[in-house]
């Protein structure tokens, strides 16, 4: 009797996942019950929540937006680069019913949890890298392939289309791999350029410097280096300076933290491909707010019509920072 009961429980208690998890362009209905801004809470979930670039740009702008709009904002996520932990955080946040969710699109693997948020009726915007296979209501950020292309084009210009080039970043990250591909697609059009290696600097200045000094020893005629994470540039610049080749080995990289800008001013780094990160979270949060408050209603009832009243995709564009315009960035502070 007990065995039969257990078997019944197993058979009827078992539930398989839905067959296909495809994204649709039609928006899922959104709960629009909260209208008093003072009660609203917008939550940003990222991974590597303490990364200085995220703190100084994304999170600072998000907090400023919250203050300006008079709503609560919270920033959550694991301290390390840990995608499963970011997913876990989103899953746990869903139970607390935030007004809106702003999610850093760190990896396509977060698609299913984004769908869960959307299906739960929570306005959900993805920033930085898109997760197009998810049901996210909107995306805003930069195209990492373009970051690679921009660096490739600059490197061709700086080297005259000749010489040995190496590049580094965090291997295995979807956005960086897209950036690597953008770089390679430009470089392969120039037969005078030889790509001598792709390296994992583990987002670590010391590792980037070690790789660079090894590269300079193996290839004394190295013409250029391209970096794809925040620490690639400072690491490459350190090793190039120590080898006495500052200015001779051309360097392009990403991000525009104060140390990057100083290295551009010093002539060690030749170009920075900068993202407008403040815009990701400021306008991302604003989009969530506009969804909730139906700022721009497009039908009698947008939720029932299964449409969103915000842009679906926004490319915030790139900044090209060189010695010619770097002073404008060194003296600038984000607008209050």
């Amino acid at each position, binding site marked *: 009797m007990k065995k039969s009961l257990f078997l019944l429980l197993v058979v009827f208690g078992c539930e398989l996942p839905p067959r296909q998890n495809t994204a649709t362009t039609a928006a899922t209905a959104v709960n629009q019950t909260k209208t008093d801004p003072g009660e609203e809470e917008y939550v940003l979930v990222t991974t590597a929540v303490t990364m200085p670039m995220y703190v100084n740009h994304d999170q600072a702008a998000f907090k400023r937006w919250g203050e300006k709009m008079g709503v609560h904002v919270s920033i959550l996520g694991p301290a390390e680069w840990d995608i499963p932990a970011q997913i876990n955080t989103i899953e746990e946040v869903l*139970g607390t019913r935030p007004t809106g969710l702003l999610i850093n699109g760190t990896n396509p693997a977060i698609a299913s949890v984004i769908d869960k948020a959307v299906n739960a009726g929570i306005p959900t915007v993805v920033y930085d890298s898109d997760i197009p296979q998810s049901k996210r209501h909107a995306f805003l950020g930069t195209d990492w392939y373009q970051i690679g292309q921009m660096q490739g084009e600059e490197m061709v210009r700086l080297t005259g289309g000749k010489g040995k080039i190496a590049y580094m970043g965090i291997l295995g990250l979807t956005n960086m791999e897209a950036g690597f591909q953008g770089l390679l697609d430009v470089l392969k059009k120039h037969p005078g350029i030889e790509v001598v290696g792709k390296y994992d600097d583990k987002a670590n200045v010391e590792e980037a410097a070690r790789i660079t000094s090894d590269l300079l020893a193996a290839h004394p005629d190295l013409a250029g280096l391209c970096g794809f994470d925040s620490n690639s540039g400072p690491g490459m610049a350190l090793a190039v300076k120590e080898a006495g080749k500052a200015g001779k080995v051309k360097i392009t990289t990403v991000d525009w933290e104060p140390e990057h800008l100083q290295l551009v001013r010093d002539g060690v780094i030749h170009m920075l491909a900068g993202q407008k990160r403040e815009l990701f979270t400021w306008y991302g949060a604003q989009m969530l707010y506009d969804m909730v408050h139906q700022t721009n209603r497009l039908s009698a009832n947008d939720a029932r019509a299964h449409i969103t009243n915000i842009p679906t995709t926004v490319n915030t564009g790139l900044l090209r920072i060189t010695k010619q315009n770097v002073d404008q960035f060194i003296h600038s502070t984000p607008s209050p």
Partner: protein
Amino acid sequence: MQKILQDRVSTLALTILVVGLVAALVFPETFPTFGNFSQVLLNLSIDTVVAVGMMVLLVAGVFDLSVGSVVAFSGGLVAYLLYFHQLPVPLALLAGMAGAVLIGAINGYLIAYQDINPMIQTLAMMGIVRGGALMVSGAGIQNLPYWFNAISQSKLLGIQMPVWYMLLTVAVFSFLMQKTVFFRRYYYIGSNEKAATLSGIRVQRMKMIAFILSATLAGMAGILLASRLGAALATSGRGLELRVITAVILGGASLSGGHGKIPGALLGAVFMGIVSNIMIIARVSGYWQEIILGLILISVVWVDKALQKRTW
């Protein structure tokens, strides 16, 4: 009473109960719900499966730093075989598990038979296997077959399958470690390796088996994680080894060996999971979460030591 307070599993269970009750009073709408509890259990299930293997190792007086990389590698290998070679799901699973067993066997052989320090060996293996994970997973593999995803995404009684696999693993290893002579030998080895050798226990073989078991469980965890995410990520499991060792130490294991019970590994993970969940519900910033978890670890171990020294 004395016995209860001097047993880490009991004190930890009591602490979890108290913390849970306080959280339920402070956050009555969001914390004590079926949805939240099942989510917390799901989130800690992968770590707990690995923690069970780590508990066996720590009882034997050794540890394995390569488990996080094995999690990434096994999930990546299975995904690679499924996506690029269209292998049937059972065959790909077997290959993934075989890869993990092989890593455990290499670790175990070099540590037990060639006397290489476990920290150096598993640290080196951590890098090697992470490289392997990067090679097979690249920028990540998505769109895995439905039946592979169903392994972790299915539900039983409303709870997602990894929770059930975790409970099964804990139950099986609890039985083995408490009731079988073979596994109880790990306590003798961890308490006094020389005495264990003199009493006829084949210490080297036992250690090698422990490393194979630990890697096998890490391999299983990697497959469950890839199936849950519907994707394999080369960056999966980074830092997992330290989380797992923390949970196991919280659960009563000692770095010097000879101590620890399998339910302790589960409770250690549950404790960390609940604390982390409460911090998310309370919107504690990411800066503070690491600090608070570190402080809790020190406090729990310190209070436990104090209770054990006290004469009743």
